[in-house]
């Protein structure tokens, strides 16, 4: 029933969705987007895959257990705060690198954490629901 073409298409769609999500996440600091929106977009994509292909496909595509993804995301967010503490600053103080000409900073790390938690959470529920 599941044709190779459909499978490939799904792979493609999910890859595209992920790329879009990462893009939204990256640009979120300067333009509409950010961790939530990215995660919601990605989750919608995976949800569509799960609806069409079944949850197993998503699990396979993810490689990361949703609970681990949530844990890692939350850890990342906390960790980005701890970096500020390591720099003798209050928790969650933004630290930017390189100090001249800003490229990346802990807020981006934080936003990535947000992304992972939200995505992991939605997928965790969706997959569990689908699997019942």
């Amino acid at each position, binding site marked *: 029933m599941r044709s190779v073409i459909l499978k490939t298409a799904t792979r493609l769609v999910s890859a595209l969705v992920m790329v879009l999500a990462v893009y939204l996440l990256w640009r979120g600091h300067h333009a509409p987007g950010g961790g939530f929106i990215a995660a919601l977009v990605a989750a919608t994509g995976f949800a569509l895959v799960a609806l069409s292909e079944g949850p197993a496909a998503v699990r396979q595509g993810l490689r990361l257990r949703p609970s*681990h993804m949530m844990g890692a995301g939350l850890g990342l967010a906390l960790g980005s705060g701890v970096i500020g503490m390591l720099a003798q600053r*209050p*928790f969650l103080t933004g630290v930017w690198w390189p100090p001249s000409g800003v490229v990346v900073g802990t807020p981006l790390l934080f936003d990535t954490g947000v992304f992972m938690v939200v995505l992991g959470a939605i997928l965790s529920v969706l997959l569990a629901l689908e699997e019942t």
Partner: protein
Amino acid sequence: MTNLLIYPILLPFATAVGSLLLWRRPALQQTLSLIGSAGHLAACLFLLAAVVQDGIQVLAVGNWPAPYGISLVADHLSVLMLMVTGILGTATALYARGEMAISLRSQGFHALFQVLIGGISGAFLTGDLFNLYVWFEVILMASFGLIIWGQGRAQFVGAVRYVVINLLATLLFLLGLALLYGLTGTLNMAHLHQQIMTQESHGLVTAVAFMFMAAFGIKAGMFPLFFWLPASYHTPPIAISALFAGMLTKVGVYALIRTFSLVFLHDTATTHAVLLVAAGLTMVTGVLGAAAQNEFRRILSFHIISQVGYMLLGLALWTPLALAGAVFYLVHHMIVKANLFLVSGLSRDCSGTLELPAMGGLYGAKPFLAVLFFIPAFSLAGFPPLSGFWAKLLVIQSSLEAEHYTVAAVAVLVGLMTVYSMVKIWIEAFWKPSPDFGPDQRAIVPSAWKIAPVCALALITLCIGIGAEPVYQLADTAARELMAPQVYVRAVLGGAGP
């Protein structure tokens, strides 16, 4: 700047993260959770020491100064609450280790538990009203997960009520926040204090204050908003209901004390008068509700309501002594009530049920358990020299000094009815010979994991009772801080503010 303030939030959250990452290793999760709880307790004690030594501590999270960023503020009230949170968190974590089968404790239980502790700590520490809302949500969501943990039939019935009513409270809180922001343009509580005190349109602020009173009142179990509590607290596993009984309503009480001693001070004649009436009715309704019950945990649940009334009374009277009474009551009550729930669990282990008519004979069979019940129960009933005596004394004394004799009379009457309820449990579960019938009499031997925290909490009750002075001094300092919000405001906003 001191990052000491973040540890009570950070440590439980980190523990939760750890237990999520150890998803497939329940034993490791368990160990980690216990370590995390102990670490949280230690962090709270360190913070307590810091505040006692150096006064109010403030942390501008993200290094953004108040009122722009979110500030964590630790004054005496906060650290006292935190200390008890640490104690109860550790105690219930130990108890849960003994109570629940490993299968129940895996799969996210520890994460929920730790997040709950972290959320409660956050609520006690934050100096920002919207941030308080977020911590409330954290607490709420974790408690949703925990109250249904185990998924018994009765738990679903209780959880539906718990969830719906608490969500309503949350939405009300958020609506109030929206309106308050519209009126003042700020969310920082110290800044709100300044803004409201300098504003003319007080009527609208008072109306918003009532919205907050309702929202927090639901959380605190205030009359007539308490219905979710007796409907649900007797359903989850013992360790969870003990933690809830000790902590959750008290977060609501804390929020009421915080907001009505810092933010909404412009019209105490109205707000605190309403609080006074509500407090009296809360006391009476709760204690009457308890008198009508025949199940161990349901009696205890209704007593939470009546005791919350005492604390609100302290707030409503609005004198230093009364507030000190409220704070003392909080500390005493959290420890004692959680302990009573834990004891109810031991009693269930020993007699197989919590329905009083089916219980009995524990006094002869388990004298040590009888002692463990006796201490918190009679502390709750206000017998000297246990902690509850001083709490009650403070509240009665302050209502006498404020010349609210009716209120004092109500407090005395409610105290007497509390004695009645505790004696009822004592007589039914301990003195009465064990009846021959019983629907599910399957006694088990409770493990040391469960007995140890109960003993520790009983010991603390005893210590607070006999050595009341240090706790009273802390409560008194807390009350004086609350009565003089300028100190808090200055600590948060610095000299002038924006």
